[in-house]
């Protein structure tokens, strides 16, 4: 349908020779009805071509081209290098940590040694004698073995060095012995319960002193000996500070 809006398109097609006969007839009829829209003579010249008056090269063609960046090329080697560096760093850290562990263990064992020597000092001072002291620092797991050892020492002491009492033992002493035996037996039977606790066995020459932490009172230590007496003493900061009762000092003096 040719209208006033699009008749120029048909005029153009007619000038370019692309208008069909049917449309040409329709256009002719339209222009006869609208003579004011009819083209003037030589109004249209198909030879007129609008060519570029300015012709200069575009300077940014290379910049517009997408070239893979250096990052893209280096992606694989960089990632490999980064992963390698990470592995090396982790291995160094692990190696350092493994090196640090050995001195820590050494320090720990050193602490234990210090503890045992600290325990021994008060006893030696309290005895005020030049007795040779041997300290056994043992876990509760081998308490039984220590207890057996203590029993053995007790018998050997009696056989070799312990003087025979001129007087019969007092009833109190006998009860002490019984108490110590019962406590030792109880201690042997209670081994699984007290596995986490540590016990100290101190042998002063032939006198064996056995220290057991009190489970009820944390600041109290039970001291057992192979002699006639058993007593308790308070401890402070892992140091056993106690005054040996007179019965013990007397016994040691006799030895």
């Amino acid at each position, binding site marked *: 349908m040719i209208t006033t*809006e699009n008749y*120029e398109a048909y005029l153009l097609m007619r000038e370019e020779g692309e208008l069909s006969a049917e449309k040409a007839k329709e256009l002719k009829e339209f222009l006869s009805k609208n003579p004011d829209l009819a083209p003037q003579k030589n109004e249209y010249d198909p030879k007129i071509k*609008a*060519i570029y008056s*300015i*012709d200069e090269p575009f300077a940014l*063609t290379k910049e517009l081209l997408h070239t893979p960046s250096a990052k893209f090329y280096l992606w694989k080697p960089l990632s490999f290098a980064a992963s390698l560096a990470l592995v090396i760093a982790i291995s160094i850290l692990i190696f350092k940590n493994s090196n640090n562990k050995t001195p820590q263990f050494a320090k720990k064992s050193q602490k234990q040694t210090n503890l045992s020597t600290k325990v021994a000092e008060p006893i030696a001072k309290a005895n005020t004698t030049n007795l040779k002291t041997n300290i056994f620092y043992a876990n509760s797991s081998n308490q039984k073995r220590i207890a057996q050892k203590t029993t053995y020492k007790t018998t050997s002491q009696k056989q070799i060095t312990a003087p025979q009492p001129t007087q019969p033992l007092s009833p109190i002493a006998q009860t002490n012995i019984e108490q110590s035996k019962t406590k030792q037996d109880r201690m042997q039977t209670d081994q699984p319960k007290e596995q986490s606790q540590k016990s100290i066995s101190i042998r002063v020459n032939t006198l064996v002193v056995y220290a057991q932490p009190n489970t009820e009172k944390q600041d109290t230590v039970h001291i057992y000996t192979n002699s006639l007496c058993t007593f308790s003493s308070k401890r402070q900061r892992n140091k056993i500070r106690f005054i040996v009762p007179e019965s013990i000092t007397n016994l040691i003096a006799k030895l």
Partner: protein
Amino acid sequence: MTEENYNQCVRDLSQKVYLFILNQIKDSQAAQDIVQDSFLLLWEKRKEIDKGKAQGFVFKVAYHKMIDSIRYNKRFTLPSQTKEPQTQIMYSDAKDVITKVLDTLPEAQRAIILLRDNEGYSYKEIAQMLNLSPEKVQVYLYRARVAIKKVIIRQENII
């Protein structure tokens, strides 16, 4: 559209688009900016655009950016900087006449005649680039040619 296709488009079209824009706005710096923006948009949308439609896309984007630029400049142009009326211009030859008359044409007519005569695009392709119907493209092209012819005839009459 792959990266290689994009690069091929840049090699084939950048010069054409640049001249198409430059001959309309007569400002090389602005034309370069428009061309760069057009190809940047092509790069961003390369996955959505087929290789065959890239050419029309670039011209379409460049044309609309040019229109925006022209409108923006018109808004901030002083009255004294406006072009002189066509009647006062004296032309030396037909090429000069055409060039000067093109400047006075509406943007759509100017773009159509440049795309048709310089790039050889069909009416349908031009219609797609400029978001017009093919019939409208033909109408604008006819009017542009008539306008140029009128000026040429007037110039011949003066001489």
